[in-house]
């Protein structure tokens, strides 16, 4: 057991899976000698060599399509896209082939690959380095979309993603890469893809969030408890698709009041799907309109203004209070 950052925890997962299974390979831009621009793949090339840790040419569609080919042959590639903002040209390969080859071939061919990429704002980056566009991936039949929130669940979810027989988009909250440390066990640990987690129990309000939004959400829950005596039940989705609606619909039946927090733009974002499921499955229990605290429907501004775009503790707290105050 050691206290690790998310970067170190993901590195540990890669390290252990590569050691355990020689079919696991890592590829991407600068992932080898440089160890990745965020150092997530640091040291892998030294231990496993350049045949299994491939520095690729600078071509995102190439990385995805090349990984698909490897996966078709039986390898388990973990491909890195340097920033999610550059993944859109890889999207075509993932949508047209990774997501479809199992179905198209009737199960003869499968694509057990992981496409990792850092997403989200808050690190004072250039344009195209701060988006949160998980909805594109989550909307695609045949893909799984996973977004961890802490070092420990990033590690266990990545191990599960690597072992998953289907393609997994692994969206890493770069704002949380080094923001805090957590105890991560040395021995291997997995976490089921498609399962959310109740990280804080409460009876007054259900708050659903994921990824980098977990930190302001939990901080807001503390503040609501401290200032207002409100008990929030906080659910970390962990997997966006396939969406686990069992836990949050059950929680809604207990609290009757719901808040969804995401950093992605509001319209057609994951919140829209979450709330629809709530309405479909827990409608009669709802005591107030379901609210969303999200990014705005704009391009996230450069770093002087990015925190005006990103949901923060204050926006979450005030939306929670409005939800709690609502009377029919």
């Amino acid at each position: 057991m050691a206290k690790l950052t998310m970067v170190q925890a993901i590195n540990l997962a890669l390290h252990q899976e590569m050691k355990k299974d020689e079919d696991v390979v890592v590829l991407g831009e600068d992932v080898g000698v440089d160890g990745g621009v965020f150092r997530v793949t640091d040291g892998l090339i030294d231990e496993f060599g350049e045949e299994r840790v491939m520095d690729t040419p600078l071509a995102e569609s190439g990385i995805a399509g090349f990984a698909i080919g490897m996966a078709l042959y039986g390898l388990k590639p973990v491909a890195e896209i340097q920033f999610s903002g550059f993944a859109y040209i890889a999207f075509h390969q993932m949508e047209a082939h990774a997501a479809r080859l199992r179905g198209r071939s009737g199960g003869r061919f499968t694509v057990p690959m992981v496409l990792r990429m850092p997403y989200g704002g808050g690190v004072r980056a250039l344009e195209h380095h701060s988006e949160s566009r998980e909805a594109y991936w989550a909307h695609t039949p045949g893909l799984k979309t996973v977004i961890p929130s802490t070092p420990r669940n990033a590690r266990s979810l990545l191990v599960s993603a690597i072992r998953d027989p289907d393609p997994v988009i692994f969206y890493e909250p770069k704002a949380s890469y080094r923001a805090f440390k957590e105890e991560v066990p040395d021995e291997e640990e997995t976490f089921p893809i498609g399962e959310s987690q109740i990280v804080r129990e409460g009876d007054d309000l259900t708050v659903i969030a994921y990824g980098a939004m977990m930190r302001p959400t939990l901080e807001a829950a503390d503040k609501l408890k401290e200032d207002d005596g409100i008990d929030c039940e906080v659910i970390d989705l962990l997997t966006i698709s396939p969406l686990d609606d069992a836990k949050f619909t059950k929680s809604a039946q207990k609290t009757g009041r719901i808040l969804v927090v995401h950093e992605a733009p509001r319209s057609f974002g994951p919140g829209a799907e979450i709330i629809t499921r709530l309405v479909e499955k827990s409608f009669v229990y709802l005591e107030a309109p379901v609210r969303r605290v999200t990014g705005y429907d704009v391009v996230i501004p450069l770093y002087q203004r990015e925190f005006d775009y990103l949901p923060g503790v204050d926006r979450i707290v005030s939306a929670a209070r409005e939800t709690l105050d609502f009377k029919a």
Partner: protein
Amino acid sequence: MPRKKIDLKYDIDYLSILDKDGEVDSDLEPDIDDDRLLDLHRAMLLGRRFDERMLKLQRSGKIGTFAPIHGQEASQLGAVACLEEEDWLVPSFRETAAEIWRGKAMENVLLAYAGFNEGAHVPKGVNNLPVSVPVGTQALHAVGIGYAMKLKGKKEVAMVFFGDGATSEGDVHEAMNFAGVFQTPTVFICQNNHWAISIKRSHQTRSETIAQKALAYGMPGIQADGNDALAVYAAAKEAVDRARAGDGPTFIECVTYRMSVHTTADDPKRYRSDEEVEKWKERDPIDRFQKYLKDKDLLSDDAIEALESEIKDEIKAAVKGWEKRMAELTDKTGMFDNVFAEMPPYLAEQKEAFEKTLSS
């Protein structure tokens, strides 16, 4: 001297072995045993006749849109004839004859074009990818497959097909670049059939040959007469041997011609002249191959007639088999299968709801 010609590692050759009249250049004639030559001839003829049959089925509304191969029999069969069973075929959507050579049942081809997903399903253990529709995207898969073969220490080869139009797509360039950098056992076969729907070859790229694009990626490239089965075979054999020996990828441009429509939804009269098509008729790949086989005393008019009748029966049987299969495919819930290895709860809910609509 501050300015001089740069000597590149590779030159671009043009290879022709059987001329349009079927005369062979015996210095270049590849060593193919007689049975193999006859198999190749049979496959070309079957490919042509099956294509004609499918066109009729499409015109009478029995199957949907498909991409005919007429005129391109040599350029695809000459290439796949060099593969071993364990090698991988990565097709685009105009390699029906090559797919049949590699074992795809004609009734499955018909099933797929008649709008049944089941037609594209691949039996376990068969290394032929299904048809890939988005132009050029499949090239990258052949490079990844090749890399995996190499990593696993296998002496296998992945052969990918695409057309002249695909060479304008980024994925083809990324694939060639990756193949060059990682020296994968990949054979790129570009069937340059001169037309990408209505865009003619000269408007697709200013490049004098398509083969020369290989030079930019540090791999050998060759232009072969794509209507000459021997030239395609010889070029592909060299490429396959090179890949199998661990000496990396090769790019082959097969210069051929799309005698028919792009797909059955296309009307070529809008963009090309009958005279051009007539000119290419003289370069028919089957005519000249038959002349060659006759000169070698491997084939006679009587034998061709007998073969035509045999092929007719085989296609007839396939059509019957396909009609029977269609009648048997009554389960409509297949769309929910194989989305994932395990069906997630929300999909199971949707499947159940769909089943209710069927029974109500």
